[in-house]
């Protein structure tokens, strides 16, 4: 018989007061911490999110577009968007265009400029309000999307969008990208490259703009006070297009 099991007195010596259960508990917490910490660190660095983690409203994705840096003849953001999302790049009135370059001329001063225009990812999106089936929806992190499975193609959201940012798929599509579901008879628009953002990457348009050396598109988390975009928005005057509508857009512009 084991003598220790019969001993009714607990070990009261403070220097050796660490039984096996305590030891195992404490050491496993420590090990878990060691195992998770680098992952958390990397995750934090990449601003991404684990596959099984729900989207949180602690993040609000947005863009700040500097109109002064946007080159008039440059179309790189549009091309990158088309390539990333499998759009044809056609510019017929029936073709989908998720992002477009708009040329502006001030009617009084005659000043000419250009800027990229896309879904503004409103906090109060009119497209979501009017959609009869809730196919148009806003993710917790502010990205406005269309659920391709429940869109019935009524086009009411196209009528309601103040930015003409939505396209209706007018014909049969081929060679689609697996990460970017699209379908004939449904409405679509800029997804803020959700497939990239969820992996912790930048949007295709922002990357293309940086690659071209313009750096006119800054993408990031508006809710993170330490993010570049939040700092920049605090530092400069930025505007929302049709701010009078009170939609609180996720895409802001500088220099218009």
């Amino acid at each position, binding site marked *: 018989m084991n003598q220790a099991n019969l001993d009714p007195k607990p070990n009261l010596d403070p220097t050796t007061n660490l039984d096996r259960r305590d030891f195992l508990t404490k050491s496993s917490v420590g090990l878990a911490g060691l195992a998770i910490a680098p992952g958390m660190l990397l995750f934090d660095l990449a601003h991404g999110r684990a596959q099984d983690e729900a989207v949180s409203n602690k993040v609000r994705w947005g863009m700040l577009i500097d109109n002064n840096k946007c080159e008039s003849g440059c179309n790189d953001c549009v091309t990158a968007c088309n390539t990333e999302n499998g759009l044809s790049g056609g510019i017929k*009135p029936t073709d989908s265009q998720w992002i477009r370059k*708009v*040329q502006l001329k001030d009617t009084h001063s005659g000043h000419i400029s250009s800027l990229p225009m896309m879904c503004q990812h409103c906090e109060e999106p009119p497209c979501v*309000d009017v959609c009869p089936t*809730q196919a148009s929806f806003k993710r917790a992190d502010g990205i406005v999307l269309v659920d391709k499975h429940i869109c*019935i193609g009524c086009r009411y959201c196209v009528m309601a969008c103040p930015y003409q940012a939505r396209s209706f798929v*007018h014909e049969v599509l081929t060679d689609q990208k697996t990460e970017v579901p699209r379908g004939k008879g449904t409405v679509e628009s800029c997804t803020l490259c959700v497939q990239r953002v969820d992996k912790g990457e930048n949007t295709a348009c922002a990357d293309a703009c940086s690659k071209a050396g313009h750096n006119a598109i800054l993408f990031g988390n508006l809710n993170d006070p330490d993010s570049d975009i939040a700092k920049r928005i605090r530092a400069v005057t930025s505007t929302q297009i049709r701010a009078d509508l009170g939609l609180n857009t996720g895409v802001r512009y500088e220099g218009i």
Partner: protein
Amino acid sequence: MSSNSFSRYETRYFYALVALGALLVFLGYLGMHTMEEHGHIVTGMNNQIVWGIPHVFAIFMIVAASGVLNIGSIGTVFGKTPYKARAPLSGLMAIALLSGGLAVLMLDLGRPDRLIVAATHFNPTSVFAWNIFLYSGFFTLAALYLWTMMEKRMNVWSKPVGFTMFAWRVILTSGTGLIFAFLVVRQAYASALLPPMFIVLSFAWGLAVFLIVQAAMYSWNNKVLDPAILKRMKNLLGIFVISSLYLVAAYHLTNLYFAKQTGFEHFILRDGGIYPMIFWAGYVLLGSFLPLALIYLPGLGNTKTVVAASLLVILGSFALLYVFIIGGQAYPLSIFPGYEVSSSFGDGQIGKYVPSLPEILLGFGGLAIAFLITIISTRVLNSLPHDVAAVAAKNDD
């Protein structure tokens, strides 16, 4: 042809009309099938003008469905005997027109196969979703209304059901107006005047359709409509046409008053090419002034001129809706006020739209559905208005 020989062939004529209606429905099906197979690329619609001619047909029928029921309401709710005799016919026509209108609206969807999704996923903030609820209620109430009128034991319920129906259709037509009125960023639509405007338009359009069907039924059954009743109804049409003109004028004048809307009003009323032409010639002249002349000028106002006036009112309604729906979208959105804009996506440009055959066929297919339901149901159910001459004369106030 004598009336005797007509009676002998009456059944054949009826089936010939049914065949004609069925043929038009089939052609509408072909139009829909082409759109379903190839997508909206086969229509004239595009990313700037997303609602085309099918919406013109659909909204005409939905608004007229509500308006035609006004005839029944005048009888049931306001107790006017000559209109009471017409309540069953007005109920049947309302169901027919709403069926035709909804068929077009739904078959013009990008994914009509997902119609069930509209019933299973309901967005309470969407006026479109409210309308789905309002349309279902309209069908149910109209059927109930007919039952209370046609089944003697249920007659006592006719008045309360008629009242509910009256309220329901006012809300339904307001809902149709709100589909546009809620589009705050579209210069053509964001106006609180639209729901009342659509209600008054519905009175005129519904009555015009009713007068045509009524004249056809009387002629078919070799009967003559009491001139006193005809006079009452044509005068009512005149009042509705004038009221419609008033509200349409108020809508444009209030828009003109707002500096930010004047560009749109100049476009739609003066500079927009085909749209001002259709508005002034189609709606104002042919669709309003000419019918008013046919109704009120001394020596006119007989059955033929009233039918002609009604046909012109319907023509005018299509003209008005075409300008309102297509012209309203053709004018570019004001995204950057104070700037001249251009892009590859139609910014700052007038949208182009030419209706194509498939979508026109779909529209007429919807009208044919309404026509078929009307002629079959009026034959199967005894809905021919039976007037007592003395009653008509007595109520001629």
